[in-house]
Protein backbone atom coordinates (compact mmCIF):
# COMPACT_ATOMS: atom_id res chain seq x y z
CA UNK A 1 0.00 0.00 0.00
CA UNK A 2 1.38 3.39 -1.00
CA UNK A 3 -0.02 5.55 1.72
CA UNK A 4 -1.65 3.67 4.63
CA UNK A 5 -2.42 6.85 6.59
CA UNK A 6 -4.36 8.47 3.77
CA UNK A 7 -6.09 5.14 3.10
CA UNK A 8 -7.31 4.89 6.71
CA UNK A 9 -8.40 8.52 6.65
CA UNK A 10 -10.34 8.25 3.37
CA UNK A 11 -11.91 5.00 4.56
CA UNK A 12 -13.07 6.54 7.84
CA UNK A 13 -14.62 9.57 6.12
CA UNK A 14 -16.18 7.39 3.44
CA UNK A 15 -17.66 5.10 6.10
CA UNK A 16 -19.06 8.09 8.03
CA UNK A 17 -20.84 9.27 4.89
CA UNK A 18 -22.02 5.80 3.85
CA UNK A 19 -23.52 4.85 7.22
CA UNK A 20 -25.05 8.33 7.62
CA UNK A 21 -26.67 7.91 4.18
CA UNK A 22 -28.10 4.50 5.12
CA UNK A 23 -29.57 5.81 8.41
CA UNK A 24 -31.08 8.91 6.75
CA UNK A 25 -32.60 6.75 4.00
CA UNK A 26 -34.49 4.81 6.70
CA UNK A 27 -36.68 7.92 7.02
CA UNK A 28 -37.94 7.64 3.43
CA UNK A 29 -41.78 7.41 3.56
CA UNK A 30 -41.67 7.87 7.37
CA UNK A 31 -40.77 11.55 7.83
CA UNK A 32 -43.24 13.85 9.63
CA UNK A 33 -44.14 15.69 6.41
CA UNK A 34 -43.55 15.19 2.71
CA UNK A 35 -41.09 18.08 2.32
CA UNK A 36 -38.99 16.55 5.07
CA UNK A 37 -39.16 13.14 3.47
CA UNK A 38 -37.67 14.65 0.32
CA UNK A 39 -35.11 16.63 2.33
CA UNK A 40 -33.78 13.63 4.24
CA UNK A 41 -33.60 11.52 1.09
CA UNK A 42 -31.70 14.32 -0.68
CA UNK A 43 -29.24 14.69 2.19
CA UNK A 44 -28.78 10.91 2.18
CA UNK A 45 -28.03 11.09 -1.54
CA UNK A 46 -25.38 13.78 -0.98
CA UNK A 47 -23.78 11.63 1.73
CA UNK A 48 -23.85 8.63 -0.57
CA UNK A 49 -22.20 10.66 -3.32
CA UNK A 50 -19.35 11.67 -1.00
CA UNK A 51 -19.09 8.08 0.26
CA UNK A 52 -18.68 6.74 -3.28
CA UNK A 53 -15.85 9.17 -4.07
CA UNK A 54 -14.06 8.54 -0.77
CA UNK A 55 -14.41 4.76 -0.84
CA UNK A 56 -13.35 4.55 -4.49
CA UNK A 57 -10.24 6.53 -3.63
CA UNK A 58 -9.58 4.40 -0.52
CA UNK A 59 -9.80 1.30 -2.70
CA UNK A 60 -7.25 2.74 -5.14
CA UNK A 61 -4.87 3.67 -2.31
CA UNK A 62 -5.16 0.20 -0.83
CA UNK A 63 -4.23 -1.32 -4.18
CA UNK A 64 -5.83 -4.67 -3.39
CA UNK A 65 -8.42 -4.48 -6.16
CA UNK A 66 -11.35 -3.52 -3.90
CA UNK A 67 -13.73 -1.00 -5.47
CA UNK A 68 -16.45 1.08 -3.75
CA UNK A 69 -18.91 -1.83 -3.85
CA UNK A 70 -16.45 -4.33 -2.38
CA UNK A 71 -15.70 -1.91 0.44
CA UNK A 72 -19.35 -1.05 1.12
CA UNK A 73 -20.92 -4.48 0.80
CA UNK A 74 -18.26 -7.07 1.56
CA UNK A 75 -16.73 -5.87 4.81
CA UNK A 76 -17.90 -6.97 8.26
CA UNK A 77 -18.59 -4.61 11.15
CA UNK A 78 -15.09 -4.82 12.63
CA UNK A 79 -13.63 -3.57 9.33
CA UNK A 80 -15.76 -0.41 9.28
CA UNK A 81 -14.05 2.79 10.49
CA UNK A 82 -17.05 5.13 10.83
CA UNK A 83 -17.65 7.09 14.02
CA UNK A 84 -20.30 5.73 16.41
CA UNK A 85 -22.46 8.85 15.93
CA UNK A 86 -23.64 7.87 12.45
CA UNK A 87 -24.57 4.30 13.37
CA UNK A 88 -26.78 5.30 16.32
CA UNK A 89 -30.43 4.46 15.65
CA UNK A 90 -32.43 7.38 14.32
CA UNK A 91 -34.61 7.75 17.40
CA UNK A 92 -37.35 10.35 16.99
CA UNK A 93 -37.17 13.20 14.49
CA UNK A 94 -35.55 15.50 17.09
CA UNK A 95 -32.74 13.03 17.71
CA UNK A 96 -32.19 12.63 13.96
CA UNK A 97 -31.88 16.43 13.66
CA UNK A 98 -29.48 16.49 16.63
CA UNK A 99 -27.36 13.84 14.86
CA UNK A 100 -27.47 15.79 11.60
CA UNK A 101 -26.49 19.03 13.35
CA UNK A 102 -23.45 17.40 14.96
CA UNK A 103 -22.48 15.54 11.78
CA UNK A 104 -22.78 18.52 9.44
CA UNK A 105 -21.10 20.93 11.90
CA UNK A 106 -18.18 18.46 11.83
CA UNK A 107 -18.20 17.66 8.09
CA UNK A 108 -18.36 21.31 6.94
CA UNK A 109 -15.03 22.46 8.50
CA UNK A 110 -13.53 19.04 7.73
CA UNK A 111 -14.33 19.18 4.01
CA UNK A 112 -13.35 22.86 3.89
CA UNK A 113 -9.93 22.06 5.38
CA UNK A 114 -9.64 19.06 3.06
CA UNK A 115 -10.21 21.34 0.05
CA UNK A 116 -6.89 23.01 0.88
CA UNK A 117 -4.90 19.89 1.75
CA UNK A 118 -1.90 18.57 -0.22
CA UNK A 119 -3.66 15.44 -1.52
CA UNK A 120 -5.26 16.44 -4.84
CA UNK A 121 -8.00 13.83 -4.84
CA UNK A 122 -9.09 14.57 -1.27
CA UNK A 123 -8.92 18.31 -2.01
CA UNK A 124 -11.30 17.87 -4.97
CA UNK A 125 -13.73 15.81 -2.89
CA UNK A 126 -13.59 18.33 -0.04
CA UNK A 127 -14.14 21.27 -2.40
CA UNK A 128 -17.26 19.64 -3.76
CA UNK A 129 -18.74 18.14 -0.59
CA UNK A 130 -18.36 21.27 1.54
CA UNK A 131 -21.01 23.11 -0.49
CA UNK A 132 -23.47 20.30 0.17
CA UNK A 133 -22.52 20.10 3.88
CA UNK A 134 -23.25 23.82 4.29
CA UNK A 135 -26.81 23.20 3.09
CA UNK A 136 -27.19 20.20 5.44
CA UNK A 137 -26.01 22.33 8.37
CA UNK A 138 -28.50 25.08 7.49
CA UNK A 139 -31.28 22.52 7.34
CA UNK A 140 -30.44 20.86 10.67
CA UNK A 141 -29.98 24.25 12.38
CA UNK A 142 -33.41 25.42 11.16
CA UNK A 143 -35.13 22.40 12.69
CA UNK A 144 -33.15 22.46 15.93
CA UNK A 145 -34.15 26.12 16.41
CA UNK A 146 -37.76 25.50 15.41
CA UNK A 147 -38.16 22.54 17.76
CA UNK A 148 -36.00 23.91 20.59
CA UNK A 149 -37.77 27.27 20.58
CA UNK A 150 -41.17 25.71 19.88
CA UNK A 151 -43.65 24.11 22.26
CA UNK A 152 -42.82 22.71 25.67
CA UNK A 153 -42.96 19.19 24.24
CA UNK A 154 -40.82 19.94 21.16
CA UNK A 155 -38.28 21.72 23.41
CA UNK A 156 -38.13 18.73 25.76
CA UNK A 157 -37.60 16.27 22.92
CA UNK A 158 -35.05 18.43 21.12
CA UNK A 159 -33.01 18.79 24.33
CA UNK A 160 -33.28 15.03 24.89
CA UNK A 161 -32.01 14.44 21.34
CA UNK A 162 -29.02 16.74 21.85
CA UNK A 163 -28.26 15.13 25.23
CA UNK A 164 -28.34 11.68 23.65
CA UNK A 165 -25.94 12.38 20.77
CA UNK A 166 -23.59 14.81 22.55
CA UNK A 167 -21.21 12.23 24.07
CA UNK A 168 -20.58 10.83 20.58
CA UNK A 169 -19.22 14.15 19.28
CA UNK A 170 -15.98 13.63 21.23
CA UNK A 171 -14.84 10.77 18.97
CA UNK A 172 -15.01 13.00 15.86
CA UNK A 173 -12.18 15.23 17.09
CA UNK A 174 -9.64 12.74 18.48
CA UNK A 175 -6.25 14.03 17.33
CA UNK A 176 -4.60 12.43 14.27
CA UNK A 177 -1.59 14.69 13.75
CA UNK A 178 -0.35 12.73 10.71
CA UNK A 179 -3.67 12.66 8.85
CA UNK A 180 -4.29 14.93 5.79
CA UNK A 181 -6.43 17.05 8.15
CA UNK A 182 -6.04 16.67 11.92
CA UNK A 183 -9.64 16.49 13.26
CA UNK A 184 -8.53 18.04 16.57
CA UNK A 185 -8.01 21.36 14.75
CA UNK A 186 -11.73 21.47 13.83
CA UNK A 187 -13.14 21.35 17.36
CA UNK A 188 -13.11 25.12 17.93
CA UNK A 189 -15.21 25.90 14.85
CA UNK A 190 -17.55 23.02 15.67
CA UNK A 191 -18.12 24.28 19.22
CA UNK A 192 -18.78 27.83 17.99
CA UNK A 193 -21.28 26.67 15.36
CA UNK A 194 -23.18 24.30 17.63
CA UNK A 195 -23.28 26.62 20.67
CA UNK A 196 -24.67 29.46 18.54
CA UNK A 197 -27.45 27.21 17.19
CA UNK A 198 -28.29 25.79 20.61
CA UNK A 199 -28.36 29.24 22.19
CA UNK A 200 -30.80 30.50 19.57
CA UNK A 201 -32.85 27.35 20.06
CA UNK A 202 -33.03 28.04 23.85
CA UNK A 203 -31.31 24.70 24.42
CA UNK A 204 -28.49 23.88 26.79
CA UNK A 205 -25.08 22.63 25.68
CA UNK A 206 -24.71 19.34 27.60
CA UNK A 207 -21.89 18.83 30.08
CA UNK A 208 -18.96 16.92 28.65
CA UNK A 209 -18.45 13.65 30.46
CA UNK A 210 -18.82 10.13 29.09
CA UNK A 211 -17.00 9.98 25.74
CA UNK A 212 -17.62 6.70 23.96
CA UNK A 213 -15.29 5.82 21.07
CA UNK A 214 -13.81 2.89 19.19
CA UNK A 215 -15.47 3.35 15.81
CA UNK A 216 -12.21 4.47 14.17
CA UNK A 217 -10.63 1.20 15.41
CA UNK A 218 -13.50 -0.97 14.20
CA UNK A 219 -15.13 -1.44 17.62
CA UNK A 220 -18.80 -0.66 17.06
CA UNK A 221 -22.18 -0.86 18.72
CA UNK A 222 -24.39 -3.81 17.79
CA UNK A 223 -26.61 -1.32 15.93
CA UNK A 224 -24.07 -1.28 13.10
CA UNK A 225 -24.39 -5.04 12.60
CA UNK A 226 -28.12 -4.77 12.01
CA UNK A 227 -27.64 -1.80 9.68
CA UNK A 228 -25.02 -3.70 7.65
CA UNK A 229 -27.21 -6.80 7.48
CA UNK A 230 -29.94 -4.80 5.79
CA UNK A 231 -27.58 -2.75 3.60
CA UNK A 232 -25.49 -5.72 2.42
CA UNK A 233 -27.97 -8.60 2.15
CA UNK A 234 -28.87 -8.12 -1.51
CA UNK A 235 -25.30 -7.73 -2.72
CA UNK A 236 -24.15 -10.76 -0.74
CA UNK A 237 -27.09 -12.91 -1.83
CA UNK A 238 -26.51 -12.06 -5.49
CA UNK A 239 -22.78 -11.32 -5.90
CA UNK A 240 -22.02 -9.26 -8.98
CA UNK A 241 -25.70 -8.59 -9.75
CA UNK A 242 -26.25 -5.45 -11.84
CA UNK A 243 -29.28 -3.32 -12.55
Amino acid at each position, binding site marked *: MNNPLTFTFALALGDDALIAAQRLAEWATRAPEMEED*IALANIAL*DQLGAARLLLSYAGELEGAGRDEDALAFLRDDREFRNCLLVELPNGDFAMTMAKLLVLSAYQLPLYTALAGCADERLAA*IGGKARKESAYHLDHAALWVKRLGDGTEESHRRMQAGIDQVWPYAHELFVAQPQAPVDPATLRGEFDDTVSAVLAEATLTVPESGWAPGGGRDGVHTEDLSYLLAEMQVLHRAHPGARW
Partner: protein
Amino acid sequence: MPTPEPAGERDAGEPAVSSAREAAAAVVDPEIRVVTIADLGILRDVEEDPATGRVVVTITPTYTGCPAMDVIRADIRHRLAAAGHRDVEVRTVHSPAWSTDWISDAGRAKLAAAGIAPPAPVRRDGVVPLTLAVRCPRCGSPETAQLSRFGSTACKALWRCRACSEPFDHLKAL
Protein backbone atom coordinates in the same frame (compact mmCIF):
# COMPACT_ATOMS: atom_id res chain seq x y z
CA MET B 1 0.01 9.79 -44.49
CA PRO B 2 -2.97 11.03 -42.48
CA THR B 3 -4.76 8.70 -40.10
CA PRO B 4 -7.74 7.12 -41.90
CA GLU B 5 -11.07 8.59 -40.89
CA PRO B 6 -13.21 6.19 -38.88
CA ALA B 7 -16.35 5.08 -40.70
CA GLY B 8 -19.47 7.08 -39.93
CA GLU B 9 -21.76 9.80 -41.11
CA ARG B 10 -19.16 12.45 -40.51
CA ASP B 11 -18.18 14.49 -43.59
CA ALA B 12 -14.64 13.89 -44.73
CA GLY B 13 -12.44 16.84 -43.81
CA GLU B 14 -14.68 18.09 -41.03
CA PRO B 15 -12.56 18.78 -37.97
CA ALA B 16 -13.17 15.73 -35.79
CA VAL B 17 -13.04 17.51 -32.50
CA SER B 18 -15.66 20.03 -33.51
CA SER B 19 -18.05 17.28 -34.57
CA ALA B 20 -17.37 15.45 -31.30
CA ARG B 21 -17.86 18.63 -29.30
CA GLU B 22 -21.12 19.36 -31.09
CA ALA B 23 -22.40 15.84 -30.43
CA ALA B 24 -21.45 15.90 -26.75
CA ALA B 25 -22.82 19.41 -26.24
CA ALA B 26 -26.22 18.29 -27.60
CA VAL B 27 -26.70 15.63 -24.91
CA VAL B 28 -29.81 16.50 -22.94
CA ASP B 29 -29.84 16.39 -19.14
CA PRO B 30 -31.87 13.24 -18.35
CA GLU B 31 -33.65 14.83 -15.37
CA ILE B 32 -34.22 18.34 -16.75
CA ARG B 33 -34.84 17.52 -20.37
CA VAL B 34 -35.12 21.12 -21.62
CA VAL B 35 -31.40 21.87 -21.18
CA THR B 36 -28.23 20.23 -22.45
CA ILE B 37 -25.18 19.26 -20.45
CA ALA B 38 -23.36 22.14 -22.17
CA ASP B 39 -26.07 24.61 -21.04
CA LEU B 40 -25.65 23.40 -17.45
CA GLY B 41 -21.86 23.51 -17.43
CA ILE B 42 -21.64 19.75 -16.81
CA LEU B 43 -19.63 19.36 -20.04
CA ARG B 44 -16.14 20.66 -19.27
CA ASP B 45 -14.03 19.68 -22.26
CA VAL B 46 -13.87 17.64 -25.47
CA GLU B 47 -10.47 16.72 -26.87
CA GLU B 48 -9.27 14.43 -29.60
CA ASP B 49 -5.91 12.76 -29.65
CA PRO B 50 -4.74 13.43 -33.23
CA ALA B 51 -2.55 10.33 -33.25
CA THR B 52 -5.14 7.77 -32.18
CA GLY B 53 -8.42 9.53 -32.95
CA ARG B 54 -9.57 8.84 -29.41
CA VAL B 55 -12.03 11.43 -28.13
CA VAL B 56 -11.88 12.32 -24.43
CA VAL B 57 -15.01 13.97 -23.04
CA THR B 58 -14.67 15.51 -19.59
CA ILE B 59 -17.74 16.06 -17.43
CA THR B 60 -18.38 17.10 -13.84
CA PRO B 61 -21.40 16.28 -11.65
CA THR B 62 -23.67 19.02 -10.31
CA TYR B 63 -24.05 17.27 -6.93
CA THR B 64 -21.78 14.42 -5.76
CA GLY B 65 -24.66 11.97 -5.57
CA CYS B 66 -26.39 13.03 -8.80
CA PRO B 67 -27.98 9.80 -10.07
CA ALA B 68 -28.12 11.10 -13.65
CA MET B 69 -24.38 10.74 -14.24
CA ASP B 70 -24.50 7.13 -15.50
CA VAL B 71 -27.21 8.02 -18.02
CA ILE B 72 -25.28 11.11 -19.12
CA ARG B 73 -22.16 8.99 -19.72
CA ALA B 74 -24.15 6.47 -21.75
CA ASP B 75 -25.87 9.23 -23.76
CA ILE B 76 -22.52 10.84 -24.60
CA ARG B 77 -21.24 7.50 -25.96
CA HIS B 78 -24.40 6.99 -28.06
CA ARG B 79 -24.33 10.52 -29.48
CA LEU B 80 -20.65 10.31 -30.34
CA ALA B 81 -21.00 6.86 -31.87
CA ALA B 82 -23.81 8.19 -34.07
CA ALA B 83 -21.48 11.01 -35.15
CA GLY B 84 -18.86 8.47 -36.13
CA HIS B 85 -16.65 8.50 -33.05
CA ARG B 86 -15.99 4.95 -31.98
CA ASP B 87 -13.14 5.41 -29.52
CA VAL B 88 -14.55 7.57 -26.75
CA GLU B 89 -13.48 7.97 -23.14
CA VAL B 90 -15.73 9.84 -20.71
CA ARG B 91 -13.80 11.26 -17.78
CA THR B 92 -15.45 12.59 -14.62
CA VAL B 93 -13.68 15.33 -12.71
CA HIS B 94 -14.67 16.95 -9.39
CA SER B 95 -12.38 19.94 -9.32
CA PRO B 96 -13.09 22.76 -9.72
CA ALA B 97 -16.44 22.06 -8.08
CA TRP B 98 -19.49 22.76 -10.26
CA SER B 99 -21.29 26.02 -9.66
CA THR B 100 -24.66 27.25 -10.89
CA ASP B 101 -22.69 30.27 -12.19
CA TRP B 102 -21.59 27.96 -15.02
CA ILE B 103 -25.14 27.69 -16.39
CA SER B 104 -25.18 29.64 -19.65
CA ASP B 105 -27.57 32.49 -20.40
CA ALA B 106 -29.24 30.27 -23.00
CA GLY B 107 -29.59 27.57 -20.35
CA ARG B 108 -31.16 30.01 -17.90
CA ALA B 109 -33.65 31.14 -20.53
CA LYS B 110 -34.58 27.52 -21.34
CA LEU B 111 -35.06 26.71 -17.64
CA ALA B 112 -37.31 29.75 -17.12
CA ALA B 113 -39.33 28.88 -20.24
CA ALA B 114 -39.90 25.39 -18.79
CA GLY B 115 -41.18 26.84 -15.50
CA ILE B 116 -37.97 26.33 -13.51
CA ALA B 117 -36.68 29.53 -11.89
CA PRO B 118 -32.96 29.81 -12.69
CA PRO B 119 -30.46 30.39 -9.87
CA ALA B 120 -29.25 33.83 -8.82
CA PRO B 121 -25.49 34.41 -9.05
CA VAL B 122 -23.69 32.73 -6.15
CA ARG B 123 -23.09 35.33 -3.45
CA ARG B 124 -19.43 36.27 -3.20
CA ASP B 125 -18.05 38.11 -0.21
CA GLY B 126 -18.94 41.54 -1.54
CA VAL B 127 -19.43 44.86 0.17
CA VAL B 128 -23.21 44.67 0.28
CA PRO B 129 -24.76 41.33 1.23
CA LEU B 130 -27.90 40.99 -0.79
CA THR B 131 -30.40 38.28 -1.52
CA LEU B 132 -32.19 38.56 -4.82
CA ALA B 133 -35.85 37.63 -4.95
CA VAL B 134 -36.70 34.45 -6.84
CA ARG B 135 -39.07 35.51 -9.60
CA CYS B 136 -42.00 33.32 -10.57
CA PRO B 137 -41.11 31.75 -13.93
CA ARG B 138 -44.79 31.87 -14.97
CA CYS B 139 -45.95 35.41 -14.13
CA GLY B 140 -42.66 37.11 -13.26
CA SER B 141 -43.78 38.25 -9.83
CA PRO B 142 -41.09 38.60 -7.16
CA GLU B 143 -43.72 37.78 -4.51
CA THR B 144 -42.64 34.18 -4.00
CA ALA B 145 -41.97 31.90 -1.03
CA GLN B 146 -39.98 28.73 -0.49
CA LEU B 147 -42.17 25.70 0.21
CA SER B 148 -39.44 23.10 0.58
CA ARG B 149 -35.66 23.48 0.73
CA PHE B 150 -35.28 20.29 -1.29
CA GLY B 151 -37.09 19.31 -4.46
CA SER B 152 -37.60 16.67 -7.12
CA THR B 153 -33.88 16.49 -7.96
CA ALA B 154 -30.75 17.19 -5.90
CA CYS B 155 -30.26 20.57 -7.58
CA LYS B 156 -33.74 22.02 -7.01
CA ALA B 157 -35.96 23.47 -4.28
CA LEU B 158 -39.75 23.88 -4.35
CA TRP B 159 -41.22 27.39 -4.36
CA ARG B 160 -44.66 28.96 -4.72
CA CYS B 161 -45.78 32.23 -6.27
CA ARG B 162 -47.99 34.38 -4.04
CA ALA B 163 -49.27 36.37 -7.02
CA CYS B 164 -50.44 33.56 -9.32
CA SER B 165 -50.48 30.79 -6.67
CA GLU B 166 -48.55 28.36 -8.89
CA PRO B 167 -45.86 26.16 -7.33
CA PHE B 168 -42.58 25.99 -9.24
CA ASP B 169 -39.10 24.47 -9.12
CA HIS B 170 -36.10 26.65 -8.39
CA LEU B 171 -32.57 25.63 -9.26
CA LYS B 172 -30.64 26.32 -6.05
CA ALA B 173 -27.61 28.60 -6.32
CA LEU B 174 -24.52 26.50 -5.56
